[in-house]
């Protein structure tokens, strides 16, 4: 739908469609086997070559300099096929957006203009949390001009494959948290085996232990939450676009199946209860599509309170998606539960995506407190 309002996004839509058809669709089950099968490095390399890892990154830093609309169009199409690659694109874009919010132009230039491979272009980030709500973060200690990181960071997405990581950490006794850039090849870093997760199997995460690891401060001390909030408001829409793509994929597979599968002598689409389920899925996918479109336009036009609209849109889309993908399996019955079809993966991936950027209830609480003009730290129990 976004391409109807913003026709200049059509080439990105076509590019993502053809990429998904060429590189993803026929190998969904194979790619999903990770960490119990090989990682799809070739696909990642090709995604890097076509520019998917730097969509929102400015051209001066080695990206393709597009806005949130292009990112959403690409994520939608990619996630219709296989959202693991969507998770990688999302996480890298989030890292870039946080560094951009922190005003680190030199760092962005240094990392991304010099990268010559996908791994060098990736910056790992714990994209399933809001660092401000985490009780346990690594601790940073300043020694001269340098900072040393110590402690554990759970669920660092892309931590096993990226060259660098953007790490939220506490800095001494200072309030809040700060961001640090870490070279993941440095001594003193212990990574776990890839974490076996619910969904997005090929967008892997690891737990990391830092032992006095040299790190570069990103932005100013203690201002991590400001950078995260600014970047995440926009990125909520991108997460919404991922689940919108999943809903569309689920609906398309369910519809095609319902036109072929027979029950009681006729195609199951002719049974009105199945039609009702399909219709509900379509309603949800269309509503989600409209939410993403409107949210992207609000961002582009810098509308008043676009940030709140983006969070609301994403929360709504994730709820719709978790329902729709459950129905998507149901239409296929036993077949939908098997890995030969795409529905079971969407059922898992939709929930995984819902958890991006922190838990849904906390996002809701934060949203209403912001709307009411209340201090976030004083919420009553």
């Amino acid at each position, binding site marked *: 739908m976004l391409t109807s309002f913003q026709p200049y996004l059509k080439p990105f839509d076509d590019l993502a469609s053809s990429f998904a058809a060429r590189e993803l669709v026929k190998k969904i089950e194979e790619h999903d086997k990770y960490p119990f099968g090989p990682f799809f490095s070739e696909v990642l390399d090709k995604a890097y070559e076509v520019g998917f890892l730097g969509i929102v990154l400015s051209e001066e830093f080695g990206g393709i300099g597009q806005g949130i609309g292009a990112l959403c169009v690409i994520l939608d199409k990619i996630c219709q096929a296989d959202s693991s690659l969507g998770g990688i694109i999302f996480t890298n874009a989030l890292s870039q957006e946080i560094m951009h919010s922190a005003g680190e132009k030199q760092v962005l230039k240094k990392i991304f203009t010099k990268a010559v491979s996908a791994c060098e272009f990736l910056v790992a980030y714990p994209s399933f949390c809001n660092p401000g709500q985490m009780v346990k973060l690594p601790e940073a200690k300043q020694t001269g001009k340098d900072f040393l990181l110590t402690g554990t960071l759970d669920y660092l997405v892309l931590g096993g494959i990226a060259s660098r990581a953007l790490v939220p950490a506490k800095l001494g006794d200072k309030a809040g948290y700060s961001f640090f850039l870490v070279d993941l090849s440095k001594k003193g870093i212990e990574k776990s085996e890839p974490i076996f997760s619910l969904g997005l199997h090929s967008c892997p995460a690891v737990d990391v232990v830092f032992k006095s690891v040299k790190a570069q401060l990103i932005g100013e001390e203690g201002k991590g939450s400001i950078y995260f909030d600014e970047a995440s408001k926009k990125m909520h829409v991108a997460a919404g676009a991922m689940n919108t793509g999943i809903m569309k994929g689920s609906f398309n597979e369910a519809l095609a199946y319902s036109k072929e599968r027979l029950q009681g002598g006729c195609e199951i689409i002719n049974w009105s209860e199945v039609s009702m389920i399909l219709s509900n899925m379509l309603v949800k996918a269309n509503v989600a599509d409209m939410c993403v479109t409107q949210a992207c336009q609000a961002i582009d036009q810098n509308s008043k309170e676009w940030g709140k609209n983006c969070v609301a849109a994403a929360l709504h889309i994730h709820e719709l998606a978790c329902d729709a993908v459950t129905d998507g*399996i*149901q239409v296929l*019955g036993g077949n*939908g539960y098997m890995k*030969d079809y795409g529905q079971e993966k969407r059922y898992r991936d939709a929930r995984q995506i819902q958890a991006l950027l922190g838990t849904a209830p906390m996002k809701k609480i934060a949203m209403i407190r912001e709307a009411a003009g209340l201090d976030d730290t004083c*919420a009553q*129990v």
Partner: protein
Amino acid sequence: MLSCSEVSTRLSQYPKFEDTMLSLQYAPKMPKAMVMETKQVIAIARQFNDEVARPLALALDRKTHEDPDYLPWDLVEKANKRGFYSMWIPKIFGGKGYNLPSMSYFSEEVGSVCLGIMNVIGVHYLGVAGLLTSYNTPLIKRVLKEVIQGEKNGKPCLVALAITEPGAGTDVEEMDLIDKGKITCLAKRVKGGYIVNGRKIFISMGHVSTWTALYGYTDLKNASETTVGMMMKQGMKGFTLGSHENKMGQRVCPASELIFEDCFVPDEQVIVDAQMTRKYTKKPLKEINMRYMDYALSATRAGVGAFGVGAARGAFEHALKFANETELNGKLLINHQWAQCMLAEMYKNVMVGRLAYIEANYANSLRGAYKLLQLKPMYYYQKYMPQAYFDKVISPFLERESATWLLRKMAYDWHSLADDHCCSGWASLAKFTGTDIGVRNCQMALELMGQAGLRQDRGVEKILRDAKLVQIYEGTNQLNRLNLFKCLIAPAYPQAKVFEE
């Protein structure tokens, strides 16, 4: 005050008292010893959870991802050693004879830790139910004797049930649909038995079961009247095992493909067919076949409801533990009001789901498959008479054709359609209520736990994967909603037609 006849008239109005207030009606009829026995069963399940299920659940799930060909022989041996495969086999057939409703509580307990492990135990009783409710006593005795012996000699003998076909899932569970279904499993009558050709899929524990209760049809266009039930033993000529499915969850319990190619089944292994049915009833074959199906499913669907409640409970317990250990904004999550409300909602779901399967069990105890065994005299007789008495005195009677005739006459010919509807409708209600809340609670637990809930090593994501399957097997929840309508609503509205769009 109303007169007795006025009360009776009022209570006969829709919704009828006898179809709805089942616990109220059954409570005074329930043998008291059932309560103590059920407590024992729950304690046994909890011990199994602590010693076997909990330590193994996540490791086995991981193992099945590493090795998709894994089959749970070790687990089956553990369950066999603990006597789980004969616990709910009536003593007249050599089993331990625990009351049948108690299996639902067991299913919830073990299911709250791992639905896959529970199915490794529980689906055996789906096969046993298919066999028992045929009331073909000589064949029941023969097969179950092997199950009992398998427990004694440490060589597990399990029973599976094979109905689903590649082109027909819902169709084969509903006689109003089956004749139009894409059915392929042909049982051709030949001298001395049947020759079977066809494939069955999604057969839980098919690879691991010694016996399989198989349903074929002598006329694929008239399957509702030509159903043939047969007991197939692994190793029979023409019976081979295909692959087993790569499922999202419940991976420790294989879903098998069974292939039959010119497989001869002797008459001694035929559970039920039209010829046998005609010996004890003149009612339409389609009606009797549906009742036979309903008789078994009314028991097993209530059990699947308990599986769903188990998933809901597992998700709740994980979420509660997480909330009790995790700080958010400087306070334990369990002390945030919104989290307390979420946990209360999850707790409520568990209780409502449990009430539903308990009520369905009461329906079966009052008016269905459990009725005979749970009449007080019969229950106590079975419970306290020594096993030797059943082996020496009762067992020979079971070899007689008259035993099969009498039990079938009682179960199907004398059994009212209203009783059948009550049990079947309530079983469907329990099934879709329990399994829907199973998925619902997992979703809530994930929302509450956020990133932590996504990890396989935390347990909840596995429950979410496992729980989805129970919304599908034993009839999709859509089929079960339609069955509830057919059984508990439509009878009061004669113009209502089901499965006739």
